[in-house]
């Protein structure tokens, strides 16, 4: 039983599902009783056609209960998946900018989709069957004890063999399976590996040759798998034998006692129909358990991802805005869109001060930032340069609230950043990350990310300023062009320009750019630099840069190395600092 999962699944729908499953199981007993009566002609409360009618009603009720069980199991499963998925997404979303999730992010997306879907067999199959297996064998045993003690004893003695053998053989199988598992996945993965590398094989004329390799590897895969299965299927052989031999053990003595006249036909038939029903729930439970294993693995993965210990203390773990001294001291908060249009008077920029700020990341001995002091005056544009991993991006992440200082503080217009309500403070920021994400929606909606109510004219104006309009307006659907996997793919330069348009439309007093021209060719770079120059005008800006062209727009260049600020010099590109780089 997966405790976390069951706790989350608990609720009215689960109880209805379990009750229906158990009730349907109990009706099997009634059905056996009535069928034995019908076949033996023994005197029951009703007889003949009336008895058949009652039997039909019982059968219909059982079918109805099975349907109810299925419907409510699905309700439980879908509700559980929705809750778990929403929690996972919210948690992963908050953790993602803190870094570290990059390599595993594809895996995590799969977990929220197909991964959680594999919980279905656990909730809809295993849990109800567990309830049935707990109740029905006992009920059958009680009925058999009343009907015929000798049979009950045989069943009672053989019934535990199923879980015992199941566990024994299952344990044996597990050892053998685990030994094989690694080899199997490698062989199975071989095919995908070869298919993915096919273009390379073609270039070197080795593609045809690999066809024979694929077949021989598949053969090796098969023999290895069969060796495992020969042992694995022994478990079902044993379980099947226990059930069928028990039936023979019951039927033959019953026949002999009928012959001796010490048993009546009704009881004998009842025993014959009922005895197998004692074994069925346990055997089905075993099968469902195997089917549910994948779901258990997914659940473990999901709860591990949700566990607060994963990835250490993350700044985003508290819900945005909660648990903070929500003193609404941010200057100019609550500006609605349009209060200062993109081309109008720029909003008053803020003054930023880092005071002895130290940042540590879990699992790393060296601090990412080490007692950094930095002041950025209102309207000033500061470029941050330095080798990768020096802590440049971390400075931006501090302002964005993706990272928190371990020591020291950050002052915004004299107010401690920690005292500001996060979501309201972020309204003062426009951010262009190193690799901006474009969402699977229209270009216009992508530009509107931070200003959902902006009219199309404003979107276009921002795009013009960001040099994005020149390619967007040439697309057949213009600003309504869908982006993303099924939509249009954009080049790196085009993506940067869309992200800059976002920042123009956001029209915030503080601008944060993280390597906006990395990976761009010269012409895209020129366009992005020009757009960034316009954007920084009248705004307090911090730009992480490593290409000279973008440094030209900075008032001051600050060099960061190993978490410390090593030099600060007046910009722009003709500074001695730049030449020394």
């Amino acid at each position, binding site marked *: 039983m997966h405790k976390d999962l069951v706790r989350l699944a608990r609720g009215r729908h689960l109880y209805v599902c379990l009750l229906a499953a158990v009730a349907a199981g109990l009706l099997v007993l009634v059905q056996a009783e009535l*069928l034995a009566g*019908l*076949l033996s002609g023994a005197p029951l409360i009703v007889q*003949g056609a009336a008895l058949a009618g009652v*039997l039909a009603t*019982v*059968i219909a009720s059982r079918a109805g209960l099975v349907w109810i069980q*299925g*419907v409510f*199991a699905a309700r439980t499963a*879908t*509700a559980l998946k929705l809750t778990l998925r929403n929690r996972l*997404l*919210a948690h*992963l*979303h908050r953790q*993602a900018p803190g870094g570290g*999730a990059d390599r595993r*992010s594809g895996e995590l*997306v799969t977990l929220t*989709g197909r991964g959680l879907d594999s919980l279905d067999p656990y909730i809809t199959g295993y849990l109800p069957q567990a309830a049935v297996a707990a109740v029905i064998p006992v009920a059958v045993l009680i009925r058999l004890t009343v009907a015929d003690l000798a049979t009950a004893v045989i069943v009672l003695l053989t019934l535990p063999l199923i879980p015992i053998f199941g566990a024994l053989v299952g344990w044996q199988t597990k050892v053998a399976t685990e030994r094989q598992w690694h080899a199997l996945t*490698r062989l199975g993965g*071989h095919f995908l*590996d070869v*298919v993915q590398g*096919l*273009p*390379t094989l073609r*270039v070197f*004329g080795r*593609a045809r040759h690999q*066809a024979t390799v694929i077949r021989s590897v598949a053969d090796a895969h*098969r023999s290895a798998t*069969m060796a495992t299965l020969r042992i694995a299927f022994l478990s*079902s052989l044993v379980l*099947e*034998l226990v059930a*069928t031999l028990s039936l*023979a053990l019951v039927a033959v003595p019953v*026949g002999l006692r009928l*012959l001796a006249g010490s048993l009546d*036909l009704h009881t*004998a*038939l009842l025993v014959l*129909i009922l005895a197998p029903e004692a074994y069925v729930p346990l055997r089905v439970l075993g099968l469902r358990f195997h089917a549910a294993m994948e779901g258990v693995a997914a659940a473990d993965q999901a709860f591990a991802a949700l566990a607060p210990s994963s990835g250490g203390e993350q700044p*985003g773990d508290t819900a945005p805005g909660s648990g903070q001294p929500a003193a609404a001291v941010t200057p100019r908060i609550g500006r609605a869109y349009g209060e200062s249009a993109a081309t109008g008077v720029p909003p008053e920029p803020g003054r930023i001060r880092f005071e002895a700020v130290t940042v540590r990341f879990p699992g790393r001995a060296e601090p990412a930032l080490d007692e950094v002091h930095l002041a950025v005056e209102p309207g000033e544009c500061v470029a941050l340069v330095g080798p990768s991993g020096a802590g440049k991006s971390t400075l931006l992440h501090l302002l964005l*609230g*993706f990272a928190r200082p371990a020591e020291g503080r950050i002052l915004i217009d004299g107010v401690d950043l920690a005292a500001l309500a996060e979501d309201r403070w972020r*309204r003062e920021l426009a951010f262009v990350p190193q690799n901006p994400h474009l*969402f*699977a929606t229209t270009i216009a909606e992508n530009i509107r*990310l931070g200003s*959902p109510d902006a009219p199309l004219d404003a979107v276009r104006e921002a795009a013009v300023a960001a040099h994005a309009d020149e390619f967007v307006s040439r697309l057949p659907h213009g600003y309504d062009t869908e982006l993303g996997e099924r939509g249009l793919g954009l080049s790196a330069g085009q993506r940067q320009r869309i992200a800059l348009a976002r920042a123009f439309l*956001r029209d915030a007093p503080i601008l944060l750019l993280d390597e906006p021209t990395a990976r761009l*060719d*010269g012409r895209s770079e020129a366009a992005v630099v020009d757009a960034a120059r316009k954007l920084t005008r009248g705004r307090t800006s911090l730009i992480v840069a490593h*290409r*000279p*062209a973008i440094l030209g727009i900075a008032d001051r260049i600050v060099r960061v190395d190993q978490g410390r600020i090593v030099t600060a010099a007046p910009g722009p590109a003709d500074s001695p600092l730049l*030449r020394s780089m």
Partner: protein
Amino acid sequence: MAAAPTEIAKLLVRGGLLPRLTWAALAGAAAELAGLGLIAAAAWLIARAAQQPELAALTVAIVAVRAFAITKGIFRYGERLTGHDVALRAQSEVRGRLYDALVPARADRRGGDVLSRMVGDADAVQDLLVRVLLPALAALVTGVVAVVLSLALLPSAGAVLTVGLVVAGILVPLSTAAAARRAAVRLAPARGELAERSADLIHGAPDLMAYGASERALSAASEVGARLGRLERSAARVSGAGLAASMLVQGLTVVGVALLAIGAGVGQVATAVLALTSLVAFEPVLPLAAAGERFAGIGTALGRLRSVLATPPALREPERPAAMPPTPLTVEIDDIRVRHRPEGPPALDGVSLRLAPGRRTALIGPSGAGKSTLLAALMRFLDPESGSIRINGVDIAELSGDDVRAGIRGLTQDAYVFHASLRDNLRLAGPEATEAELTEAVRRARLLPFVERTGWETVMGGDGATMSGGQRQRLALARVLLADPAVVVLDEPTEALDSETADRLLDDLLTATEGRTTLMVTHRLHGLDRVDEIVVLDAGRVVQRGSHDDLLAAPGYYRDLWESERLTARHDA
């Protein structure tokens, strides 16, 4: 989709799998029949014993009960083993055929996820055999035997049983399959949308948080999740109804058979045998409702697979390929035009180029200009719509693709590191190469320090040792040097490398290709003063050509790019 069964049948016949499949089906049927026999013999034994005959009259039944009890499990074990063996053989056959279909060059580039789905689709065959076909066959045999037995005892009971089995074993599975297909049509897009929203939330987290759009995005994802849940619940209502209907039919059939038997006065023994045989005959039939649902998914997978197998290769290989001209090779590209889609704009629009022995040519231009397309045409991965490519005067359309690529090959953008040892990863470019040649190739690709540190036998890729982008490209370069083609092509060898690494690699590349016929696509101009000719492509046309100095003298794309790069180059100065 409807053709899937015939496809499978063809596959089974070609793979020589029919005998094994027959054995598996027979074992499965035998197991079900043993179950049927067990309950029929037990019912007969008990009902007959109640009439208190001589003990001798019961001995056959007693032996039968015991025999059936033992054989059922053994037959089942045999069925599962042979069934899985056939399934794995079929899987290997399908993989082989899929691979054969993928080997000829194709114009479309498939992403890794499409490939892995394709591999998953190929595995659906296994599911089809083990979870659908074999259980259905066993159910069919059991049903027929039960019906024959019933007809022999009481024709009317046999008729009722036939109707019940047809409804539960054929009609219900057919409708659950149809319902599952209908549900899939609505579920698949919802699942896709959810995956998209989840990816946006995780990959786009910095953007969303910085712009205060997190709550909006989270609630949008939750809404899609809720919609998916509603669709899943309605699918569950239908599939639950399938199982319930089968159980209802089973119960009513048994009651009907019992009433008919009692009414006909066939006696208690026959009545018990008839009723209990009917009850058990449904056992293998009930799971078919779920198998029908599963079949819908498998059918979709097989349909996708079939369309892959049926897609004709992008280009025609000549029936009788001409002999490859001897080296040195002169390649003349004459006014070629290439379209990726018939209705689309041309990717190459009248490009001419001459690669003379020993001369090095660089191809530059903005992304989408047609540079990689030109290389693909040169390596005979696609046929030009018009114009020709000739090697020493022979049109490459008359040569086999493998022959062309033996002469013209090199470093492609998708250079792949296989999950194999470093040695095998290199050796694929020269299966006959000696140790000394391997070492020489990595030395000249400046990968020797890495190889010495890592070891030749270390497994790369997958869960093996990882290589940096630069090391990957150097491995690819070592492959080219080992293969030693007459004409070397290099497609964006410095893509995705930082500028320092890129410039070092370019220097090494230019040194390594000294005196070789070379065509290099690049987006960095570093070192291009060392090549003989530079060709600038834009929108599928040659817009500028000449030496480095010629191009710097004229305004245009090349000079713009050079100026911008010179600004960047200060970085290293």
